[in-house]
């Protein structure tokens, strides 16, 4: 019986198989592209930089811990340092999968196709994202990353080597955007519409940023880093016309990240620390930085740990960042100007730094639509515009944090310089058990600790990254 079956079976099978090969050959995906041009990849990646790297949960958390933002909810919460590894899955995923991997492929493809502008842009944005990531997490994967299943457990590069990589990437990027061979970006480049000069300025500004991050790193000196920064700043952004941002039209499918971050269902509001300091200095920019509370018509921030009150009694992000059609800022020219002020101060002292510092403040005011000749602006500049030997660093950092508002750079600057002055949330106000100082880094995400275990992943939020020496 079985024999007959086998014979019949084999006959049957052979007859049918030839026809079946073709019948089964239908597994090519009709819904997507197997290869995408550089222009198709660049646009969503730029938006990803704005939404995720600059406006994602990582940025929200940095602003909670810098006491700019809080939630109108009971404590303890992530505002008061209650976080678990899983909270960092989404930011890490957005950095590595959404942004870096696409930049990695964009760079590879553009290099192969000899489209140097795209290759340069990919490297600049890679450097930016890597820099943001390493400042949050310290040691991170890079040299073995983006290999898919070829390397399922990429080892972690030390933060110091990431910093070296960033400068190398930026140097080759500058060469590439200057060379500008092959296909030129145009309307697909939402940041600069293909203006390679601006990309070059952006790259130099980044070089300065990452030089200055190492002012207190062991083996580096503030003076030398400042000198390097000043050299780079010679070719960097000089006014807000150089700003790098993603423009949002403000429809529900194209709204600015901070609009969503402060959307009422999130219950996110400004913290009193931030609003009170703006008010105390009578900052004329407050009207665009913050909204008046719906119920009271006042600028009010919530005292972190005070529990929750009436959501409409508090201010949220104003038109500069928080409208649906606000720009999604990636790099403010103000930052380059304040970096110059800081580097100048560190190299040449406060007198030399003062005009640069004042220029930085006015540049920001002008960008935010504040008339710098107005009484309020003049009063502000009078009160805040002069540096002294003792207050220079503090003022530069305070003003930088206003001008660079909502940027994660403010957390880096606080870790580097201790400014603006902040007090840790007390346990009475809901601080997580055992946390008695303001966090200085993120936890590694659960996804990495389970899929790619590394010894460095035991770090806690009060540990310090490499450059953050005491």
């Amino acid at each position, binding site marked *: 019986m079985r024999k007959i*079956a086998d014979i019949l079976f084999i006959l049957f099978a052979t007859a049918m198989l030839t026809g079946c090969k073709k019948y089964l050959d239908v597994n090519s*995906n009709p819904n997507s592209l197997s290869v995408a041009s550089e222009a198709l990849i660049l646009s*969503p990646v730029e938006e990803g930089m704005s939404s995720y790297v600059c*406006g994602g949960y990582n940025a929200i958390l940095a602003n909670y811990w810098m006491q700019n933002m809080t939630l109108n909810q009971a404590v303890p919460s992530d505002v008061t340092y209650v976080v678990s590894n899983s909270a960092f899955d989404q930011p890490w995923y957005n950095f590595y999968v959404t942004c870096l991997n696409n930049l990695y492929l964009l760079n590879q493809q553009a290099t192969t196709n000899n489209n140097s502008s795209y290759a340069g842009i990919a490297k600049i944005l890679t450097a930016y994202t890597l820099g943001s990531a390493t400042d949050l997490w310290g040691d991170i994967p890079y040299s073995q990353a983006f290999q898919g299943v070829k390397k399922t457990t990429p080892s972690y590069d030390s933060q110091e080597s990431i910093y070296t990589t960033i400068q190398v990437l930026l140097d080759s990027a500058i060469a590439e955007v200057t060379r500008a061979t092959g296909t030129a970006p145009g309307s697909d480049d939402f940041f600069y519409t293909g203006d390679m000069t601006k990309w070059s300025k952006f790259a130099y500004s980044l070089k300065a940023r990452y030089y200055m991050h190492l002012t207190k790193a062991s083996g580096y000196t503030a003076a030398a880093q400042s000198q390097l920064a000043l050299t780079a700043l010679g070719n960097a952004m000089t006014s807000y016309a150089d700003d790098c941002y993603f423009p949002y039209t403000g*429809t529900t499918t194209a709204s600015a990240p901070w609009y969503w971050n402060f959307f*009422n269902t999130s219950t996110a509001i400004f913290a009193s620390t931030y609003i009170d300091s703006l008010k105390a200095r009578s900052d004329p920019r407050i009207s665009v930085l913050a909204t008046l509370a719906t119920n009271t018509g006042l600028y009010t921030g919530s005292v972190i740990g005070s529990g929750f009150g009436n959501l409409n009694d508090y201010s949220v992000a104003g038109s500069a960042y928080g409208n649906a059609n606000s720009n999604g800022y990636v790099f403010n020219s103000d930052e380059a100007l304040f970096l110059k002020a800081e580097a100048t101060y560190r190299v040449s002292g406060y007198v030399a730094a003062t005009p640069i510092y004042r220029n930085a403040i006015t540049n920001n005011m002008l960008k935010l639509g504040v008339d710098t000749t107005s009484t309020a602006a003049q009063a502000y500049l009078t009160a805040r515009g002069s540096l002294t030997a003792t207050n220079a660093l503090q003022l530069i950092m305070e003003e930088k944090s206003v001008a660079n508002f909502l940027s994660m750079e403010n957390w880096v600057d606080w870790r580097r310089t201790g400014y603006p002055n902040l007090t840790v949330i007390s346990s009475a106000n809901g601080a997580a058990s055992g946390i008695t100082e303001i966090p200085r880094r993120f936890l590694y995400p659960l996804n990495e600790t389970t899929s*790619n275990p590394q010894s460095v992943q035991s770090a806690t939020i009060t540990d310090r990254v490499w450059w953050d020496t005491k």
Partner: protein
Amino acid sequence: MRKKSFSRLFLFCLFICLSTWGHAQSLFKLKGKITDTSGMPLPGATIQIKGKKAAVIAGGDGSFSISAPSQGTIKISAVGYDPKEVSFNGGAELNITLSSGNKSLSEVVVTALGVKKEKRNLTFSSQEVKSEEILRAQEPNVLNAITGKVAGVQITSSTGAPGSSSAIIIRGITSLTGDNEALIVLDGVPMNNDETDGGGNGGSGSNRLADIDPSIIESMNILKGAAATALYGSAGARGVVLITTKSGGKNSGKPTITLSSGLSFETAILAPRQYTYAQGSKGVYVDGVTAKTSTSWGPRIDTLYQNGVKVPFYNQMKEFFKTGVTNNNTISVAGGGPTSNYFVSYSYFDQTGTVPTAKLGRHSLFTKFNTQITDKLSLTTELTYTYSSKNLINEGYGLQNPLNTVYIAPISYNLKPYLNADGSQRLYRYSRDNPYWVLDNVGNTSLVNRFLPVVNLAYNPTSWLSVTERLGADIYTDKFNNHVNIGDISYPTGRLYSVDENFRQFNHDLIAQIKGKYGKFNGSLLVGNNVWSKHYDYMYATGSGLAKAGYYNMASASTVSYSENSSMQRKVGFYSQAEIDYDRLLILSLSGRYDGSSVLATSNAYYPYGSAAIGFIFSELLKDRLKQIINFGKLRVSYASVGNDNVGPYATTTPYVQVNSTNVYATNITFPYSGQNGFVISSALGNATLKNELQKEFEIGLETKLLDNRIGFEASYFDRRMSDGLVQGVALASSTGYGTTTINSARIRTKGVELLLTATPVRTKNFSWDVTINYTKLNTKVLKVAPGLTQTNIGFTYAVEGKPYGMIYGSKYARTAKGELLLDDNGRPYNGGNDFLGTATPDWTGGITNQFHYKQFGLSFFFDTRQGGVLDNVDEYYNLFYGVSKTTESRADRIVSGISASTGLANKISTTAQAYYQTVSYITEAQIQDASYIKLRNVSLSYSVKKSLLVSTPFKDATITFTGRNLWIHKASNFTGSDPESNNTYGTSNGSLGVYTFGTPTSRSLGCTVKLVF
């Protein structure tokens, strides 16, 4: 092609013969009585004059009367008894005794590919559920009708919303991420049972088997082991549910018309909550009007006055839910002549849910026509057409779920009216929608049109050869719309979402079968070929910014994004099965199949597999006296190795996908944007080397009938190992650049025991009692996830090496090494880190059905149970935080017993109840609850009008049945929700198991059905 040896069908035909021709002839009346060996009458026995077509059926007392010639022979048959022929001469009354035969001898069941086999000869495990059993459950979804009834089968239901999804998993899971549900085969043709149309922002959908009207089903046979299903190839690796529909009877002459009408009322089973404390915080009242808060940590309401007026009490849940009404009407016509027969059925099912806007409607038309074209060629064509419409709410913790605010609203706040004078929403808190506003302004509708045509051509040129060609299709369009009106809290300008799905599945089988007899050997050989294809086309459109409130056409949207997706999958298979039966004592069955699948790597597209099984009917060897006790006994052993391609299409490549809301999760922006298109690399890494997974199953089983067939016992033990399991969406470290990939890596082992006991403790003239008990214990362990990866998250749960499936992960209380609670300086528990908190998979399940018959009355009640496993009660997280949980009724300050983390001594610090529960709410462990239950799922009381009373009426049969469902639930003491069974708020997909969160509660139902046969 359908052999009329199917005893039930035979009975049916004869019954019809009686009704049409019984009165026509005017010979003399032969009278008599049929009893069994114990003297009990055998109502329903069939009596036929040999050589004539006419037959009658014995009445309730076993007596009969048949028109007969003066002498001849009558044939008597009854299900479960050996047939008998008795000769007669003249009019003397006959007393005929039938000895009970082997039920299993005569029982014929439908097996893989529609091949009918004697149950006694089966070499694998299967369990049949018959029409009466299905109809008695009064469930619109046939899967819910078999919940708890079939050993080895787990039916997972989602929520209490009308039409909400159920899943059928046979012998535990076989795949970590792929389809785990049994293959559904309707009259030989595979039928899609996807879950479609979940709520717009969350909630369960419908499993599409729900499109079938249960009243057209004659029987369902559940094939459990790989040996039973190997012929179905890859698709059958997860078990098969064979649905056989009803047919018309041959030579039935005048048509039989059956009318059935049922009405039932459903009341929601509400979860407990505290009804003592008003809105507020720290004991201070907040009225929700002049000030707002989301919590109910206010003062006692019974003594609460505001401005001298007593604050009224509102029972939010009672006010919100209403009584659901279910109406089910069916009419069917069956009949036939010598060469053809037909069955036509139409039913209309209409249900309004306990949530005011929830509705389910189903028009279902079924026609079947069978004709003998020539002596050797017969044709059966059938068509099922269903139109289903459903209105549903969003469920789960999305903000457009009205239940969210109903469950956690303070008892001191009147939720009505839902609008303020200025047209904005009125609510006791910020950032949520008013539930009554949601009812009027947020909605989901689903419309399904479904066609299931089947053509079956059977050619029997000789007695030993038969050839069957079977063509079938399953085609449906599914239109889903979600609208959110202007003024919603998350979508202030409104939102529209629309999905058009077009599903097509085609199936062809060509089967040749030869049979032969050589001495004591009976043999059969079957060869066949299968060609199958499945197509999905989806269109998604999302619109926002409505032009006008309440205008829900896509034209209303100021921004529209659109995307489409289509996929195709094909398979071919060649199969063969040989069966040899020696002297009805020993049966050997061998089957083999060679499959080709389009979804695997081209080089691995084809894969062979097969099964071998032996059945040994040891009762054949027993001495007669022992055979009186052991009427039937069979041991069976089988081994099968089955290949499977359980992965979706296009998993072999990594494409660039357009950035939009359907392709890329949580994107802020939709491309094309400002005239520019945008693509990014898919986060799911393709794998060009995918091959089939392999399932190996060893099974041993025992089937016996004891003590005059009064006791039946079936037991199976199986050990199933899945290797090279396809894992789609296995998590990669994000630093690899990708979120997930698909690999052949999983290993899963399931060992299981299934027991089925049927007994008839009492059988007398007027009274009988039947009991059916089933028990299932499955032990499923995930042995391997992926190289270098010991766990992967699947939706809300995790697959973890060495653990059962569906592990729930979250934070635990900090504890000392001895297990005492560690408390912080405020005297409150704190988060002790994350760990696995239990599995959503039960330890064991079982059910008991009792059926009593007394004269014309029937009473049955059915208990079933699930023991073990946990659920994640997300409601409890909110309830604890908001002060709504029943637990929070105790509000005194407390010194939590435990160890102070800072001093190491017993805690002496007092904390308030509010601070305590709000702290605890953040610890996942506080909301992990036991999912065990015992349910009185169904009680049914029926009365059939005595046949003798119907003689002068046009009716042949009239029955009234009262049904109660879900009358009693025993829950675990730590379960704080309404029904632990409805613990899959997000539907029945792999990753949604065990999540209980703001779902529609299940209902207690009382109803009545009247059935009339003309």
